[in-house]
């Protein structure tokens, strides 16, 4: 087993991680490297420090402390030896590597006119491991089908961070594009899907080609601001369904409204823990009040897998929430 994210680690850290028990390894979510401070891993919602023998411990004093050299090497490898190609990423504070894994960075910022111009002296890394879980959308997709128009409803998926929103919409994109609706009466073929992947997280694209299986009829606009990307896709790629991650700015809402009038279905995600939260957010309240979305889903990760609750367009709860469900996990 040698997943793609391991190749960005310098040899000594890689050897350390390979000593982890085989049961832990596939469930790794985060690896946190902080210069001169304990090496931390997160797995299944629990955290541990790693000793220099690769043992897991809760005692920070026994842990291996990555050196300045380790940090320098790691940065060199994740930037493909070319920090200068990552100026935009550094300004945003993270770098996406091959396989869709995202590495958060912490360091010292340089300001220019009150805005972050550059990040330097980078000493903290958070390697977030992306997982492709095929079939995670199986229980939810049949509920989102619009039988009258042979398509899907405008849907907003809500959850707090780290609950699997991105994993879910990745699988939704794949299934909508390949037409595996998971419903006996849904017999129409797959639809044209356009994914606006502002942070290269959904498709994990490298050089414009998706790293994950996005389905046969999916186009990905990689690294593109959402509002602009939505407009570009509508104008040029004639999508049936547009999928975007983490909307929240006023211009996003405008672009979504545009998509609605163009007759394109939209599946979007946003941070939040309930439908009522939406009204409190200025950029999203307009969307919520004008009942733009025909379906709201609030998802949460449980021990058994993904749990979700649905609301209709007028924010009335829909009963019969399906209990936890776990798809087939595949490692990138």
């Amino acid at each position: 087993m040698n997943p793609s994210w391991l190749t960005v680690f310098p040899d000594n850290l890689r050897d350390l991680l390979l000593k982890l028990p085989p049961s832990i390894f596939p469930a790794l979510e985060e690896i946190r490297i902080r210069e001169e401070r304990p090496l931390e891993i997160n797995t299944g919602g629990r955290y541990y420090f790693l000793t220099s023998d690769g043992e897991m411990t809760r005692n920070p004093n026994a842990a291996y402390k990555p050196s300045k050299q380790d940090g320098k090497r790691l940065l060199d490898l994740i930037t493909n030896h070319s920090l200068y190609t990552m100026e935009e990423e550094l300004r945003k504070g993270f770098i996406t590597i091959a396989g869709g894994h995202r590495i958060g960075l912490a360091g010292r910022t340089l300001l220019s006119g009150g805005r972050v111009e550059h990040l330097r002296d980078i000493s903290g890394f958070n390697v977030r491991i992306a997982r492709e879980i095929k079939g995670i959308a199986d229980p939810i997709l049949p509920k989102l089908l619009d039988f009258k128009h042979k398509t899907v409803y405008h849907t907003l998926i809500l959850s707090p961070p780290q609950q699997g929103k991105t994993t879910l919409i990745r699988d939704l994109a794949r299934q909508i594009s390949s037409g595996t609706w998971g419903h006996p009466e849904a017999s129409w073929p797959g639809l044209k899907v356009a994914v606006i992947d502002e942070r290269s997280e959904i498709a994990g694209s490298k050089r414009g080609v998706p790293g994950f299986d996005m389905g046969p009829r999916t186009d990905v606009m990689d690294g593109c601001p959402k509002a602009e990307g939505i407009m570009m896709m509508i104008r040029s790629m004639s999508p049936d369904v547009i999928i975007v991650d983490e909307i929240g700015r006023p211009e996003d809402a405008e672009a979504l409204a545009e998509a609605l009038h163009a007759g394109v279905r939209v599946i979007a995600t946003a941070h939040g823990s309930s439908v009522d939260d939406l009204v409190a957010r200025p950029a999203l309240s307009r969307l919520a009040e004008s009942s733009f979305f025909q379906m709201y889903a609030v998802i949460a990760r449980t021990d058994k897998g993904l749990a979700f609750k649905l609301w209709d367009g007028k924010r009335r709860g829909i009963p019969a929430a399906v209990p936890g469900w776990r798809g087939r996990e595949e490692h990138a």
Partner: protein
Amino acid sequence: MLKMFGAALVLLTATLAGWLKARQFAARPSQIRRLILALKRLETEIMYGFTPLPDALRRIGEQSGEPIRAIFVRAADHMSSAHPLTAQESLEQAVTKLWSYTAMKAPEQEVIRQLSITLGTSDRKDQLGHIATAVRQLESEESAAREEQARYEKMYRSLGLLCGAFIVILFY
């Protein structure tokens, strides 16, 4: 007869040695010039092409003649292997291994070594500054090398022949 043959051999060897030495003096400034051109191309790749360092080095290496080609391509290989080295280590190793095949000397090597420390580790503006410094240093080395060439190239060429003649006269 044998003596004659020996004398001719000595003369030939000495001339050849002198000629080789002279050629080194002639090659050094032109190699430095090519190195400067390669660095300027790297500057463009970084500033306008946003090309990642391994790709940029490989591309520029393949466009340049030997021996610069070998050094750049070797460094790119080190960076993109299965167990990649850092940019600094890659360039340093390539320079250490392959420098003896060039006509360039220690000062030029030191310039590249200095550059390797910062190459790829900062933003574009900073990279540009470092490359410009390296180019300036190389330019001053180049002019020194040209002076040496003017002074010593001809001298070594005739010195080889003269040395050979001297030995032949001494032992004949």
